[in-house]
C-alpha cells in the first residue's frame, strides 16, 4: 500500500512524524541520488557519504519544500550543491580525463573489467564507462536528462542555471560522451584483436 503513495503524500506523512514514510522516500530515490553522487565522487565510499548527506539535509529542510517543483528536482538540487561542497572539501582533481594518468587510474579502478567478458560485450556497460570518464558537470547533465526523467527546465532548476545554458551544456556533454564512447570501443577492439 505504502509504495503506491506519491512523493507528496510521503512527505506529508513524514512531516506528520511518520519516519517510516521518509524511509520509503529514500528507497524510491536512493539509486538515482547515489548514481549522481558517483558522478562526482568516483568512489563508492565517497558517493555513499554524499548521498547520505543529501537525504539528511533533505529531511532537515523538508518543511521548506514548496511543492512548486517535483520532489526529485528539489532533491537533485541538494545532491548537486552537496556534491560541489564535497568536491571543494576534498579538493578532488576535476581536470579532463584525457590526462593519461587519470585514464590509467580509472582503468585500474574497474577491477572486474578484464574478468567479465559477457559484461564487456554489453553496450550499456560501455556507455556507463564513458560517462564515468566525463567531467562531473557533463556526467550529471547526461544522467539527469536520460535517467532522471527531468526536462531541460527542471535540470536548469536543479543546477541553478538557465535552461538555454543547460541545453548548450547537454549538447557539448553528448559530443564528449560520443568521443569517449568511440575511444573506449576502439580500445576494446584493439584488445580483442
Amino acid at each position, binding site marked *: 500500500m505504502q509504495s503506491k503513495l506519491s512523493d507528496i503524500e510521503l512527505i506529508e506523512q513524514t512531516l506528520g512524524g511518520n*519516519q517510516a514514510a*521518509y*524511509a520509503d522516500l*529514500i*528507497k524510491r530515490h*536512493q*539509486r*538515482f541520488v*547515489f*548514481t549522481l553522487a*558517483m558522478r562526482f565522487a568516483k568512489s*563508492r565510499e565517497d*558517493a*555513499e557519504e554524499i*548521498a*547520505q548527506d543529501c*537525504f*539528511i539535509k533533505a*529531511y532537515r529542510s523538508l518543511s521548506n519544500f514548496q511543492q512548486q517543483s517535483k520532489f526529485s528536482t528539489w532533491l537533485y538540487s541538494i545532491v548537486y550543491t552537496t556534491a560541489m561542497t564535497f568536491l571543494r572539501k576534498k579538493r578532488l582533481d576535476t581536470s579532463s580525463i584525457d590526462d593519461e594518468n587519470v585514464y590509467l587510474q580509472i582503468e585500474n579502478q574497474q577491477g572486474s573489467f578484464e574478468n567479465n567478458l559477457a559484461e564487456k560485450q554489453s*553496450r*550499456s*556497460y560501455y*556507455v*556507463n564507462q564513458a*560517462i564515468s570518464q566525463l567531467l562531473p558537470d557533463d556526467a550529471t547533465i*547526461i*544522467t539527469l536528462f*536520460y*535517467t532522471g526523467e527531468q526536462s*531541460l527546465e527542471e535540470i536548469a532548476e536543479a543546477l541553478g542555471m538557465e535552461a538555454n545554458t543547460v*541545453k548548450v551544456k*547537454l*549538447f557539448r556533454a*553528448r*559530443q564528449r*560522451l*560520443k568521443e569517449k*564512447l568511440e575511444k573506449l570501443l576502439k580500445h576494446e577492439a584493439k584488445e580483442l584483436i
Partner: protein
Amino acid sequence: MNSIEEKLWNYIDGTCSPEEQQAISNLIETDEVYRRQYEELLALNLEFSSIELDEPPMAFTYRVMEAIRTEEAQVPLKAAINKNLIRGLFSVFAFIITAGILYAMFNINWSAGSSGSAANFSLPQVKLPVSLPPAQNVLTSTPVLKAFIFFDVVFGLFFLDSYLRKQRAAKQM
C-alpha cells in the same frame, strides 16, 4: 549558428519550434547527409538512454535513518523546548500581574485626592493573622545600612577585579 548535429539533437529532443521541426523533417527525408547523421544520433540517443543506475549498499536506507534518529536525539535542550509551553507560561504570568494591578486599582480610594489640597491615596489595609516585628526600624538602622554598603562595595570590587583579569587574559592571547 546551429550545426547540423545541434539541429538534429533539438529535433530528437523536441525542443525546436513546430516550423523548425517540419523543416528538419523535410531535410531528413531529402538530404542524405542529414538522414545519415540523424540515424547515427538516434542510435546514440538510444544507447545513452540505456545508462544503468548504480546500486547503493544494502543498508543505505537504514544508515540514513539511523543518522537522522541520532541527530534528532542530540537536539540541544534550547531547541527541544516547546515554544507553546514558553508562551503558556508567559500568558499565566502576564495574567497574574495584570490581575494584581487591576485589583489594586479598583481598591484605591480615588476620591481621597479630590477633597484636600494634597494627594492622599490610601491603599487597602491588609490584616495578617500574626503580628510581625516592625521591619522599618531594622532596615533603616545605621549598622545595617553600613553593612549593606560595605557588602556592595566588596561585591563590586570583586566583579571589577574578575573583569579586568579577563580583559588582560584576552589581550595576552
